């Protein structure tokens, strides 16, 4: 039995006139009253207070929020790397207890997530091998992914021989080559230049459309969140709750120049910017 759109989630959509979750969509990801408290020896820190949202299969959701809000924490809970304090995360109606199959994560600490003892190519290839993909296909996927992120020429370099942006792109290539069903990305373009960033944005949208994957994309770039997402989840300051679930009612075909200069884009980004400013000032719904 698959859950479908529920009242609560649609009610949260305040921008645009359609709900953030289309009627009848299959829910891939269901986050229910998630709470996360970090416990240290002598103190407790509530990172996430109460998060509830649903993501239908094949949706591209951007998550924005002030620095230190709890976005990384959220992604780590969803990916099953971190145990939540209360509430639950369901993926395809199964509670997440450990990393589920078919999920790829691009970590915020991209540098540390690469294996320094392997070349770029080996880093990208290893998860594919683990997935059991044959040699020929694997090679094709790796080459394609590395080309797509503009690193076709350095497959035999080691991560520590690369610049920060290049390391980040290796991590992206690894996730892309993996052909996941669910893709979690934590500020994946933070270290690349504007032009590369635009290219990578388009790459993610292309992939997403082609493979029909569900994407959760954490970013600090408001323009990026609006340009990329079908929906932007704006989080409050720590302890985190959802301030607003913004539906991005831009046409599905997006273009770096055209879309970004459209009136609706400007409106939306203005709206999100305002929300962030409110969040920073401590506003909570």
């Amino acid at each position, binding site marked *: 039995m698959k859950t479908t759109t529920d009242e609560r989630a649609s009610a949260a959509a305040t921008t645009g006139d359609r709900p953030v979750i289309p009627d009848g969509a299959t829910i891939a990801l269901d986050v229910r009253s998630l709470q996360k408290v970090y416990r240290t020896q002598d103190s407790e820190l509530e990172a996430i207070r109460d998060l509830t949202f649903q993501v239908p299969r094949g949706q591209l959701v951007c998550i924005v929020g002030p620095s230190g809000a709890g976005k990384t924490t959220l992604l780590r809970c969803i990916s099953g*790397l971190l145990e939540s304090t209360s509430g639950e995360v369901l993926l395809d109606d199964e509670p997440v207890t450990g*990393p589920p199959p078919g999920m790829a*994560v691009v*970590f915020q600490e991209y540098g540390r*997530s690469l294996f*320094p003892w392997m070349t770029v190519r080996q880093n990208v290839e290893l*998860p594919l091998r683990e*997935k059991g993909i044959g040699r020929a296909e694997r090679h094709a996927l790796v080459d394609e992914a590395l080309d797509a992120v503009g690193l076709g020429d350095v497959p035999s370099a*080691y991560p520590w021989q690369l610049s920060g942006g290049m390391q980040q792109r290796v991590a992206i290539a690894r996730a892309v080559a993996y052909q996941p069903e669910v893709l979690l990305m934590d500020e994946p373009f933070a270290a690349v230049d504007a032009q590369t960033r635009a290219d990578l944005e388009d790459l993610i949208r292309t992939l997403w459309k082609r493979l029909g994957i569900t994407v959760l994309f954490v970013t600090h770039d408001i323009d990026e969140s609006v340009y990329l997402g079908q929906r932007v989840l704006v989080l409050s300051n720590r302890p985190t709750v959802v301030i607003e679930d913004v539906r991005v009612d831009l046409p599905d075909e997006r273009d770096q120049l055209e879309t970004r200069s459209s009136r609706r884009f400007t409106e939306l980004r203005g709206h999100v910017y305002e929300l962030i400013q409110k969040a920073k000032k401590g506003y909570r719904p």
Partner: protein
Amino acid sequence: MTRAPRTRDALLGLTGLALVVAVVQLLPTLGLVDPAYLPPATEMFSALAREVTEASFWTQLGETLRGWAIGLAAAMVAGVLAGIVIGSVDFLRKLTASTIEFLRPIPSVALIPLVVLIYGSKPASALVLVVYASFWQVLVQVLYGVADVDPVVRDTARSYRFSRRALVRRVIWPTALPYVLTGFRLAAAVALILEITAELVIGVPGLGNAIGVAQSSGAVALTYALVIVVGLVGVAVNLGARTIERRALHWHASIRRDL
């Protein structure tokens, strides 16, 4: 490009050894210690020069090296396997911690009469001592190494759902490798020490036995000459370990910086 600094390193190392030799030469000749107990280096070397012409010396050296190598290899295999298994399974790690602490400090030397009793034939009893003593060195280093896996790296592997095998081979093993090599170097020395001691005390044939004979005959220079041989074996082992390290750990910060 990379050769030059390595040659320089070798030269420096030789300089260091030469300094030691000079000190050993000067202490007795300046009368700071009695040459009857610490003969000048030249005397040690001439005793050594005499010794290396004898076939029996090479037989003894060979026996020592064989016992050492077999024991060390066994300890490495056992230590690495046990270390990885225990280190990566939380339950086992907790369960064995106190027992490891208990067994580790029991001096192998104290086990000699037992070992002689159980493993009648002699090289085997030296072997047991060597394996017992060096096993702990390796095990403990591997345990530390396994615990040192970068959490982000571990998470990456987990999120891509690496199999246990791949986790061990691709993530845990490379992280633990620097520790394993340190363990190897510690264990190699301990194994040599135990091999020699066993030869000295139980009478297992080998260099240690020769040292014992020289000692109880009051042949001081020869004793030192044999000790020098033992030390040189140690130096050679370390050179080998360093070479392996340079190849296997070329990605590691410690090696990278040396380039």
